[in-house]
């Protein structure tokens, strides 16, 4: 305790405490009381006006509008030939495993139609691919029935596998070859195409510490019997096959295998494959980390057969994802006891034999099969919107888990309303453990991986975003099975848009960032990337058309999402959401391309919407709205003051927008501009001068490249009091921290 204070020495000194005390109390009181009143009065004097309170309420103003020329020749109404419809709607197959009950049926039973016993049996050719089939769930497509048996050796990180496929040639042309994707060979060595491609940092940006590969040991061809099972003597297909990607001896992710006899349209064959998959250390959505095994893109996978009779095959590129036909999968996964398994589909049988667990999963109407086996993960089950949701997560991640569950509850509801109900009765959500983060944020049919730190990052909604995004891929990828390699915006762009819309629904303005003093919506976080590199590459480019991983991310995800959000702002959210909902419902269990998306938008929103979408996708569509002219001349015109304003639209995206006019008497008027020409000019007669004009006052055009020129005022403010105030406060605190 310090010594006592000295006694006052004189009367002046004696009076000082009272003065000081009064000052000490008066200062904050003055600050708290006087300044607000003073600044509020000053602000009222400024009277900036806001359309919310005064729009259209003032004296009558007469607007005469003149619009700049629209484009002389209408642009093409369909995408360029370089990116045609990828896989037009096709008819139902001769045999499809449609029912949930069939998922539990014995292997091979999914192909139920009779077939000849010849290796390439004949059947009536399917209808022309141009013939429209019934949309939605009524047209489940299952062109193959695949039975898998996998034995995991977790010490060696090897999966010994057998695969049996009953495959139907659903195209209009016969084929004398098959194409197989062996994706794990991307990680075999640094000479693979995947690792040769230098596309900057990002997922898969460096080789795995431990290589991975898939070695095919046999591929045998069989005929198909009446029960849809392999029959007759096997024919070895693997021996004579070239063991590398056609035209690329260093890569082995895309292999051609010749057939001894062509398979005619509608014909069926059976294939039995034996393979050994060595998982890499975690890289690009697959691999192992400790005892966690993300077994994805792991089995020799038949390429997609288009209805036109071509093979949609491609080597595994760094930025590319996948494409495959719908089918049914029935997989028996053999793991050591103590391993928790999560997989595509529903668990239909589980038994224990000799210290191992054999878990059988089956799922109909999907186009891939992935699974996870790990020790140390916890499991939680939730029932959401009629589906059994199974969550596998590392211990200590309960906070992250709770946020994932909340996000999923919103996502099931939101996606169900917008794009149709989730058609499967199961969803497995895997939160990879630390060390396996690169396996997070990925989608497979009825199985998604999410991610995030155990504590759940405060403020940011990254956990919710990745969870909703991957769930969204159950629609745009899973159900609406566009080609991710040829048109990544159809899955990533549409999913990113839907993700943002559903996050907004659930979390409001804080859908991207939530703090006590700042709430940022997800679209705002996408805008910088979308605008800055958005014009570098056409949005509709194939995955191989992007110069870097950064471009892929900012263009496909962010610009893709904001293009749709911009269209929603211009044409109406109900119109765009209705168009996307229509596309999602009509193309369910199909393989649509950009043409189907454009058609849905044209039907729902008319030719302007369709054209704007087309330009945005294929022509690096861009937009800059600017108010370039503003003047007022008191004493002119019949009503006392004549004013003039000009708004220009730069770029090739022609979008409707609103323009707001602020008058000196406080009147605020809104006018619509269809945005088709290059400019709009208004001559306005009224009793008061036009003070300011703001184009797109609500910021609905997210892709407008420069928001700063959207307004023009005769008396622009040269100061930003809120910015000044906050900066002064935080700098003041910094001063105290720095002070002696």
């Amino acid at each position, binding site marked *: 305790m310090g010594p006592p204070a*000295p006694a006052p020495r004189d009367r002046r000194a004696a009076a000082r405490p009272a003065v000081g005390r009064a000052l000490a109390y008066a200062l*904050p009181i003055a600050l708290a009381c006087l300044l607000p009143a003073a600044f509020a009065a000053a602000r009222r004097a400024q009277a900036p006006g806001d359309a919310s309170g005064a729009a259209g309420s003032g004296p009558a103003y007469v607007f005469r509008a003149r619009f700049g020329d629209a484009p002389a020749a209408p642009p093409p109404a369909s995408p360029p030939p370089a990116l045609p419809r990828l896989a037009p709607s096709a008819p139902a197959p001769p045999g499809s495993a449609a029912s949930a009950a069939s998922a539990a049926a014995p292997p091979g039973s999914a192909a139920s139609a009779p077939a000849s016993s010849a290796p390439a049996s004949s059947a009536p050719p399917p209808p022309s691919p141009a013939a429209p089939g019934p949309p939605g769930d009524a047209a489940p497509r299952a062109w193959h029935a695949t039975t898998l048996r996998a034995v995991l050796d977790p010490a060696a990180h090897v999966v010994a596998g057998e695969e049996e496929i009953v495959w139907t040639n659903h195209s209009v042309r016969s084929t004398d070859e098959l194409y197989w994707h062996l994706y794990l060979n991307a990680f075999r060595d640094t000479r693979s195409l995947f690792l040769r491609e230098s596309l900057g940092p990002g997922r898969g940006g460096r080789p795995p510490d431990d290589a991975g590969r898939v070695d095919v040991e046999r591929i045998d061809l069989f005929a198909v019997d009446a029960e849809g099972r392999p029959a007759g003597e096997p024919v070895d297909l693997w021996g004579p096959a070239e063991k590398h990607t056609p035209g690329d001896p260093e890569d082995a992710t895309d292999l051609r295998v010749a057939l001894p006899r062509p398979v005619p349209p509608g014909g069926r064959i059976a294939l039995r494959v034996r393979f050994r998959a060595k998982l890499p250390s975690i890289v690009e959505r697959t691999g192992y980390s400790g005892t966690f095994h993300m077994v994805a893109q792991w089995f020799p996978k038949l390429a997609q057969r288009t209805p036109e009779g071509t093979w949609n095959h491609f080597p595994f590129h760094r930025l590319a994802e996948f494409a495959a036909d719908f089918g049914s999968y029935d997989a028996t996964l053999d793991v050591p006891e103590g391993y928790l398994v999560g997989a595509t589909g529903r668990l239909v049988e589980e038994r224990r034999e000799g210290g191992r667990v054999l878990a059988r999963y089956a799922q109909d109407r999907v186009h891939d099969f992935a699974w996870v086996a790990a020790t140390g993960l916890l499991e939680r089950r939730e029932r959401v919107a009629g589906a059994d949701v199974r969550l596998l997560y590392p211990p200590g991640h309960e906070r992250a888990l709770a946020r994932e569950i909340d996000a999923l509850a919103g996502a099931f509801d939101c996606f169900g309303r917008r794009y149709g109900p989730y058609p499967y009765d199961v969803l497995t959500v895997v939160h990879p453990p630390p060390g396996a983060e690169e396996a997070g944020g990925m989608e497979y049919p009825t199985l998604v991986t999410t991610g995030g730190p155990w504590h759940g990052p405060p403020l940011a909604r990254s956990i919710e975003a990745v969870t909703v995004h991957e769930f969204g891929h159950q629609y745009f990828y899973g159900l609406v099975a566009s080609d991710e390699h040829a048109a990544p915006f159809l899955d990533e762009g549409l999913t990113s848009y839907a993700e943002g819309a559903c996050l907004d629904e659930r979390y409001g303005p804080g859908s991207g960032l939530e703090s006590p003093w700042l709430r940022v919506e997800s679209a705002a976080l996408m805008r910088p990337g979308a605008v800055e590199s958005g014009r570098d590459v056409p949005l509709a480019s194939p995955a191989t058309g992007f110069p870097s991983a950064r471009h892929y991310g900012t263009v496909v995800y962010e610009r893709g999402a904001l293009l749709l959000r911009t269209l929603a702002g211009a044409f109406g959210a109900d119109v765009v959401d209705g168009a996307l909902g229509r596309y999602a419902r009509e193309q369910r269990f199909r393989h649509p391309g950009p043409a189907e998306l454009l058609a849905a938008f044209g039907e729902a929103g008319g030719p302007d919407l369709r054209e704007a979408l087309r330009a945005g996708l294929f022509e690096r569509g861009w937009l800059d709205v600017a108010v370039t002219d503003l003047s007022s001349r008191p004493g002119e015109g019949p009503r006392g003051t004549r004013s003039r304003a000009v708004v220009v639209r730069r770029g090739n995206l022609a979008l409707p927008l609103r323009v707001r006019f602020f008058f000196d008497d406080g009147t605020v008027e809104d006018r619509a501009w269809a945005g088709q020409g290059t400019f709009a000019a208004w001559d306005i007669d009224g009793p008061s001068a036009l*003070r300011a004009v703001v184009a797109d006052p609500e910021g609905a055009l997210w892709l407008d490249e420069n928001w700063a020129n959207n307004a023009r*005022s005769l008396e622009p403010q040269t100061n930003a009091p809120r910015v*000044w105030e906050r900066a002064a406060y935080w700098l003041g605190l910094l001063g105290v921290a*720095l002070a002696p």
Partner: protein
Amino acid sequence: MSEHGPLPLYRRAGALALVYLATALPAALAAAPFARAAARLVGHDPRGDALLWRPGGAWLVEAGRGALEIVPAALPLAPWLLAPWALALVVPWGLLLAALVTEGPLGRGAGRVLLGRLGPLVSLTALSVITRAAALAAGAAFALEFGPSLAGASASARTRDLLTLAFALLAPVGYGLVRLVHDLALAACVRRREAAAASLVTALGTVYRGFGRALAPFLASLLVQGASVALAAWAVGRLMGTPDEWPWVLALHQATLLVVVVARALWLRRALALVGPPWPPPDED
């Protein structure tokens, strides 16, 4: 040894106001370019910079996008601007310290003392700024280097993160200890008229003799400062979006800054008492 202790803070409200103004006014001046830059973005819109705080934060992100182009270039200049400011702040804070142990008008007694002590005060402050920065850097490096490795490969992410966080807390702890000793040294320098080195010895001796007695008021001051800033953030969050909110936010923020200054001044007054002996009045000098 005199019996005189530091004067009550309210008796030196003038010096306190000077400290507040010396903090707030340069900050307000330094904030002006930010405001001008923001006005270039939103100045033509009649809604002004209220746009930046609209729900959803789109305009704020837009402003940040513009700022990101400038900040990386300006960042290397920051130490060259902040260091002189920190040294310049020696004057008001030194004057407050001197005023608390000096009778008479500020300009005469305390001013004279400050002039006599300015050299060692500047030296101590420079040393303190460098040491505090080093403590933060060392703490961060220590946490990143040792936190994960001490946890072991088999530890869970939670254990590893918590251990890293525990080590990371060493940074502010080190920072705080440096500041505690430094504040006591400032007090000793002013009250005991000691040179910089001798002031440090006195400060360390004070801490050695009664660590708890020194630490408790120091932490109490920090607690008040932190709580007032957090409270202000919360209150501003509630105010945002309401019409005409910014004058209230201004008042709230400046009141908070004043509270922070007062809390620190109260601690420094306590530091003056702790380092004793009493300062002889100027007329006895």
